[in-house]
């Protein structure tokens, strides 16, 4: 059985309600299987390390950002991410307000480098549009914007199971309250739109995102669409705390 087939079966099994423990066991066996088959996740290809501060990411992280300049540079982004970077509840564009500066810088530089594949965004964040200083400015501006609890939420299904799953698998990096971890490039997930969270988790699971922590890719691999949806829903309902 090849790894892809294995994952399909693992997800199907999880969908049959075998529960958390089964999912975990399958996850461990998927890891072993993948290692045995010499499978490389896209994140492990070449010399890319998902959280390394190098190149222009390092430049932007080291630069002193200016929120006033950032607000002006962000004008180009407003057509999609909306004023005050609130994103859209339909999940087409994420909320960026209140996100960690480090995370925003990582995502912008990864999109520019083609590591996070995003053809929709690329022409607006490419090198002829902005440079590392602008990225630093935009990141500071966005990180200081207020976040409301008016983000898009899910249908509220399977929330007890989702909470268990979150506490078991996600909390170490994304935090008890979904506040993330700026120092380790883990995004804040509370206050984010449900549909966006769901879409991105599925993309990470299926290897379509490209710049995720490989540890997360392995964690979400055995999870079904329904489980990821419930998790996204749970995260979208986490109480809001100041991210900094």
């Amino acid at each position, binding site marked *: 059985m090849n790894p892809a087939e294995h994952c399909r079966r693992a997800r199907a099994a999880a969908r049959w309600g075998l529960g958390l423990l089964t999912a975990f066991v399958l996850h461990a066996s998927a890891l072993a299987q993948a290692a045995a088959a010499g499978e490389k996740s896209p994140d492990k290809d070449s010399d890319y390390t998902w959280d390394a501060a190098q190149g222009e990411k390092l430049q932007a992280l080291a630069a002193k950002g200016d929120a006033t300049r950032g607000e002006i540079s962000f*004008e180009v982004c*407003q057509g999609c991410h909306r004023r005050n970077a609130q994103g859209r509840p339909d999940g087409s564009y994420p909320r960026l307000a209140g996100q960690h500066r480090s995370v925003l810088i990582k995502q912008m530089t990864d999109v520019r480098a083609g590591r996070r594949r995003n*053809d929709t965004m690329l022409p607006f964040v490419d090198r002829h*549009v902005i440079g590392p200083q602008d990225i630093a400015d935009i990141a500071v501006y966005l990180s200081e914007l207020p976040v409301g609890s008016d983000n898009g939420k899910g249908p509220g299904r399977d929330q007890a199971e989702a909470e268990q799953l979150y506490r078991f698998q996600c909390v170490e990096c994304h935090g008890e309250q979904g506040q993330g971890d700026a120092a380790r490039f883990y995004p804040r997930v509370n206050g984010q739109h449900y549909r966006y969270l769901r879409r991105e988790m599925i993309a990470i699971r299926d290897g379509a995102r490209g710049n995720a922590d490989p540890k997360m890719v392995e964690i979400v691999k055995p999870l079904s669409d329904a489980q990821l949806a419930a998790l996204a829903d749970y995260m979208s309902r986490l109480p809001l705390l100041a991210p900094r």
Partner: protein
Amino acid sequence: MTALAALVLLPPAASAAEAPEVAKTVCAACHGVDGNSVAPTFPKLAGLQAEYLEKQMREFLTGKRKSEIMDASLPALKSADLPALASYYASQKPAAGSVSDEKLAAAGKAIFDDGNTASGVPACSGCHLAAAQGNERYPRLAGQHATYTVAQVQAFKAGTRSNDKARVMRAVAARMTEEEIAAVAEYIAGL
């Protein structure tokens, strides 16, 4: 003393009442003396930002923006005081716009306000602002002739107009359908 003399000798700051000579003798033929052109192929200039107007004139002169119609006026533009000309039109009162197809304009409003999330067209309001009034970085569009707006967006889409900031308008226009372009232009005309 020298500074004072210079102050006294300076012409009064861009007088809106007094149109620059070139505006009256050259530009007015197409754009109207007050910048409210009548023919829909010629853009209204009244109330457009001075930064934008000056940039366009300079780029017509360098060839970065091309227009056969403007070619005939370039010798006059070459010797004109471009900042004064730009601020003259910027200070003119834009005439009220009008819509001829309400249904089309309503479809255009949806694109203008929200974009098209399926095809990645950003909302026009992101840069040009909610009432298409623009700012010193993005030009006012409100009340512009639909014919002119359509021609420009099509030119960005085809790449024949390429003097947009950071290629952003070309990226946006490339994602727009002909129907969306017509609808947005119709909506803008009524603002």
